């Protein structure tokens, strides 16, 4: 293992921001894979996954020098400053690094961070980004592939996760890291899981296992692992968004990953002052809960649940 400072940004009063990479195998060999940890400073699950991956690869490489067969670069996080303050985005101006790609080395600070990160990560066969969702939800682990990555969707099955979500591309996506990796011919995947601000080891370890499985199947490491799921393909219309019709205290009755049936109560909303039950949220379909609103106070019309509809099980590649 080679530990490197990939780039630094100086600060007026704090220690310099150092973005570290951990390189395994031989640089420049194939197959190659880069794994980038969170850009948001509240994505604790993703930091856990990346750091445990460094530990796993380091221990096995120490025991067997031929353990890594190609090249693997793990960058546990791009944004230590925000982690150390409990902030989502860049501490000074609250800009999101993941809307700055491919970056601009003569531009604003977060554009420069993006440019430097992109320069260090844009020439790998496989590129994996560890992400928490930016909205207020908790979700099951899934692989996300942008529509422009449909040509290599079969590769997403190597993770063995239950769901592969094909994301419709919006204007904002064109400045994301995965989109730009894709443009540079990497097979790019986002692994999304958990909720911000807290470590869910159970969910995080599923993602860790998925990455190890992917590395095995793509012949990047010499290791044995159990088979995962076949991977259900989920298109944008296969997900039912269920909104609250009332606002108040949110009492959830169903968890992420639960199978639910049409008519099943999912949550109750109570008036926050007098305790009256004002809504019972009912599942409008059969399916599996992929995401759940993660805060105990809920707005009217907020997305309370997302359910992958059972009818999407008929999707084929």
């Amino acid at each position, binding site marked *: 293992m080679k530990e490197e400072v990939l780039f630094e*940004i*100086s*600060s*007026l009063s704090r220690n310099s921001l150092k973005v570290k990479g951990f390189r395994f195998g031989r640089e420049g060999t194939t197959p190659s894979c880069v794994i980038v940890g969170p850009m948001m400073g509240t994505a604790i699950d993703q930091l856990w996954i990346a750091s445990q991956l460094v530990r796993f690869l380091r221990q096995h490489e120490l025991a067997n020098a031929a353990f890594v067969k190609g090249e693997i670069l793990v960058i546990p996080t791009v944004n230590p400053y925000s982690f150390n303050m409990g902030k*989502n*985005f860049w501490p*000074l*101006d*609250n800009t999101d690094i993941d*809307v700055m790609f491919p970056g601009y080395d*003569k*531009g*604003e*600070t*977060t*554009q*420069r961070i993006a440019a430097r990160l992109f320069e260090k990560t844009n020439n790998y066969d496989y590129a994996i980004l560890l992400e928490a969702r*930016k*909205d*207020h939800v908790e979700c099951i682990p899934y692989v996300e592939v942008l529509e422009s990555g449909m040509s290599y969707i079969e590769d997403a099955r190597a993770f063995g996760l239950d769901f592969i979500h094909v994301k419709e591309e*919006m*204007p*904002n996506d*064109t*400045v994301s890291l995965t989109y730009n990796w894709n443009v540079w011919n990497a097979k790019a995947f986002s692994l999304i899981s958990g909720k911000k601000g807290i470590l869910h080891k159970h969910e995080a370890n599923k993602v860790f296992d998925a990455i190890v499985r992917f590395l095995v199947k793509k012949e990047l490491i010499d290791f044995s692992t159990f088979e995962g799921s076949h991977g259900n393909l989920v298109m944008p219309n296969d997900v039912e*968004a269920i*909104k609250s019709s*009332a*606002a*108040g*205290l*949110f009492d959830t009755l169903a968890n992420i990953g639960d199978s639910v049936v049409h008519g099943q109560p999912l949550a109750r909303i109570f008036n*926050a*002052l007098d305790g009256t039950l004002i809504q019972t949220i009912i599942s409008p379909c059969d399916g599996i809960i992929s995401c759940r609103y993660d805060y105990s*106070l*809920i*707005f*009217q*019309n*907020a*997305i309370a649940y997302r359910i992958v509809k059972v009818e999407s099980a008929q999707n084929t590649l």
Partner: protein
Amino acid sequence: MIEEVFNVNLPVNETLTLRRNRFSPEDISTSTKRISIVTGIHGDEIEGQYVCYLLAKWLNNNKHCIKGIVDIYPSMNPMGIDSITRGFPFYDVDLNRNFPGNTSDFMPAQVANAIVDTVRGSDFAIDIHASNIFLRELPQVRISRSTADELIPLAEKLDIEFIWVHDAVTVLESTFAHAMNSLGTKTLVVEMGVGMRITKEYGQSLTKGILNLLAHVGIIERAVLPTTKTTVSNLHSEVFFVNASKSGIFIPILEHNVTVLKGEKLGEIIDPLSGRIQETLISPCNGLLFTIREYPVVYEGSLLARILEDPKEDTAL
């Protein structure tokens, strides 16, 4: 007439309401022109509040002049405005990167969708911004190159100092202005002043400009005033960006809105701990200093100034 155009209940005994003040003539037909004046999409930008006040005051006092519909929307992000929060509070996202919005998405996207729905059908719209808390801007209209032919003649009616025609950027397709221009509403974006402050002179000047535009397009009956400012644009010259290459405290030397010469000192980045000058910033061209940094703490990459190159340089060559 003050109308509520969107309501959503918040968890604890409050409703989030978007309001507009509509001024209209007694007789309305399908040919009656309509303009929407929108501001407060970014909660830390207050300059537009004063313009809305002055405009509403004038219209209240001159009802006999109103021949078309003027809709004034002072606060499109009410919780943001009331808490000095740039983005949409709780969700921590930029509302102006979520247009045209979607009723099936999270709350900021639903609010964006509601704004588009209510402004839809206007012949014209003006979206007033105030830069951010970091930069002070000369009043300017920003127009995408793809809509320049159509919008520059309209922008010139505002009698504003500067029209900045910028390249089409995909990410800007998620802004209010892009969404409305796509729907056939000719929409101008005004940037002026600085975040969290009101520059009375700019507000008064823009209000006069808006009244001038309203007279030109027949929404108010009033003599069209001769323009008093020389509007410049970057159609025949370049905009130069000056970014910090060191972190520290930026101390400007020049005032905002002055002509600078190539090689002239713009400011310094200093280090309070060592008592040393970290960097001296020099103008890269002759031109108009239309943006200057207001907030002193800078990182490498922080934008310090923008200069509109003097077109005379080209002719001299």
